[in-house]
């Protein structure tokens, strides 16, 4: 096997959108079906360029909606091909029916989601309400902090989706504008290396074949439906191990290892912030600044939202005295979606001597940066004295 560290690495200045297109190209996707929506459009534009320039041997299916985009991916995957699509916000909601179909049919589709706020009021900026709307559908959901991670995650997503123990679609998320349009240095692995990591898809026995006709999606009677749902969950539970193994193998090839979560200076931390996406970079800088001032602060970055990284999270958080979950998502009438999950994980695991605070922040692209995270950390260092409890805070709300 070739080691990328020894072979030639090309470093390009890429936005996360372009990194996604390069990732799909390196994964040798065969079908691209997508409908343009801000801020996803450049992903598909770049792929169209690759196909036009014969750098990528794939078919671009021009569809009239996101619903059709996912339907085309479902057809392609059901026939044994390797499809890719990308969308955002309203587009993801428009394909919602097909989202459940893709997971229910156990099809290894990979989709980029440029996470953006849902209207009304109209907004094109960063928010995680869209991607979290597919949380319970059976899709694997992976989130990216940087353009490098977008590229790496898309390549790994095909290995995970097509794994015989998994066979489920994977959504790879990255933040609108903050990531999608921000240009960063990205190491581009060589095609040869990606080929050795990700061979062509070997179709399962149930793929559609005109010579051996079968049909998908028939009526399932009450005697069978529950078993199908149970088996989807089994696949998702097994995906946890597969994601880790794939992330480790990718690390051996590229020097960039991936897990279900990333821990940053959590070992001795009294206060840990949990976040995801581009915010994680700003939190790392905040942690370093606070550590110089003597605060024991740490970060847990959620890479994988589904399957939920139960054991990894518990392991990282159980010694903390306060845990703040900063997220761009909210369940109306309840609290932060990820925060309530983490809070219940801690309580159901018998970890009661910890204060958990759900910070709702950055909705619709509201600015949030290093100084905000320092403020949040400092307020958690005060709150931890309470010893226990759960609270929801809308951070930065105008009075």
């Amino acid at each position, binding site marked *: 096997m070739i080691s990328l560290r020894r072979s030639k690495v090309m470093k390009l*200045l890429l936005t996360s959108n372009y990194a996604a297109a390069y990732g799909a190209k390196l994964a040798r996707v065969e079908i691209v079906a997508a409908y343009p929506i801000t801020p996803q459009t450049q992903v598909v534009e770049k792929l169209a360029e690759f196909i036009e320039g014969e750098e990528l041997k794939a078919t671009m299916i021009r569809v009239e909606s996101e619903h059709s985009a996912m339907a085309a991916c479902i057809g392609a995957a059901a026939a044994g091909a390797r499809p890719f699509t990308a969308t955002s916000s309203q587009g993801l909601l428009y394909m919602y029916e097909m989202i459940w179909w893709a997971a229910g049919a156990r099809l290894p589709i990979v989709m980029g989601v440029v996470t953006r706020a849902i209207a009304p009021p109209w907004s094109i900026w960063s928010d995680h309400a869209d991607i979290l709307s597919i949380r319970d559908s059976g899709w694997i959901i992976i989130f990216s902090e940087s353009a490098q991670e977008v590229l790496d995650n898309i390549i790994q997503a095909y290995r995970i989706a097509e794994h015989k123990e998994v066979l489920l679609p994977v959504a790879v998320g990255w933040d609108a504008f903050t990531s999608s*349009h921000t*240009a960063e*240095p990205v190491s581009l692995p060589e095609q040869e290396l990606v080929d050795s990591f990700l061979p062509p898809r070997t179709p399962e026995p149930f793929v559609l074949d005109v010579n051996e006709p079968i049909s998908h999606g028939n009526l399932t009677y009450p005697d069978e439906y529950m078993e199908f749902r149970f088996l989807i969950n089994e696949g998702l539970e097994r995906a946890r191990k597969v994601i880790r193994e794939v992330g480790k193998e990718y690390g051996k090839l590229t020097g960039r290892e991936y897990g279900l979560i990333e821990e940053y200076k959590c070992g001795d931390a009294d206060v840990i912030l949990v976040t995801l996406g581009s915010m994680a970079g700003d939190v790392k800088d905040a942690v370093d600044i606070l550590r110089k001032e003597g605060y024991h602060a740490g970060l847990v970055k959620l890479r994988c939202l589904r399957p939920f990284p139960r054991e990894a999270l518990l392991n990282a958080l159980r010694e903390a005295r306060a845990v703040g979950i900063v997220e761009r998502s909210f369940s109306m009438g309840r609290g932060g979606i990820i925060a309530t999950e983490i809070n219940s994980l801690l309580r159901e695991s018998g970890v009661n001597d910890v204060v958990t605070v759900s910070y709702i922040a950055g909705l619709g692209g509201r*600015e949030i*940066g290093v100084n905000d995270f320092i403020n949040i950390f400092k307020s958690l260092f005060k709150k931890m004295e309470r010893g226990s409890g759960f609270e929801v805070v809308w951070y930065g709300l105008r009075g």
Partner: protein
Amino acid sequence: METRFLEVKWVGRGGQGIVTASRLLAEVALRRGKYAISIPMFGAERRGAPVVAYNRISDEPVRRKGPVRKADILVVADYRLLSMVNFFYEVKEKGLILFNADRVPPPLLNASKKVALVNATAIALKYGLELSGLAIVNAPLLGALIKVSSLAPLSTLKEVMKMYWGEEGGRRNFLCAKEAYEEVKYIT
């Protein structure tokens, strides 16, 4: 608190090439062995509307992606934007404002910050860098910025411009950049 970054804020109008300028600056920094990111702020993009972009340049990987609140260098592509935004507040104490104007804008005469001036519009028009009556001022502003920041030699900018705009486009843009590099001057 943090001094390991060079943070640049670009302010201009849609059509002046501000987002591209920020991108090219990151490319220049990358070629000088630095880490750099280019962050454009998007809204309802239209010609003439205010546009903002940022750069963070460092010897270490740049992790933070929040907007630059206090810049080391503020580049203002249209001085009339001065009446709309308080740019002075957005520059660090020892920061620099690089202005595109033919004369010193009155509010800057008493500025406590360092101010540099270049007539990027005139230079762009001289070389025909104009689209629908709007001068594309990113190339001269990049030339001037390379000079005042000492970030890279002109030759690096030349390479990057050639990569982005090809032989002829690169040559014309570089002539603009070179002229601005030579003409930019400090006024405070």
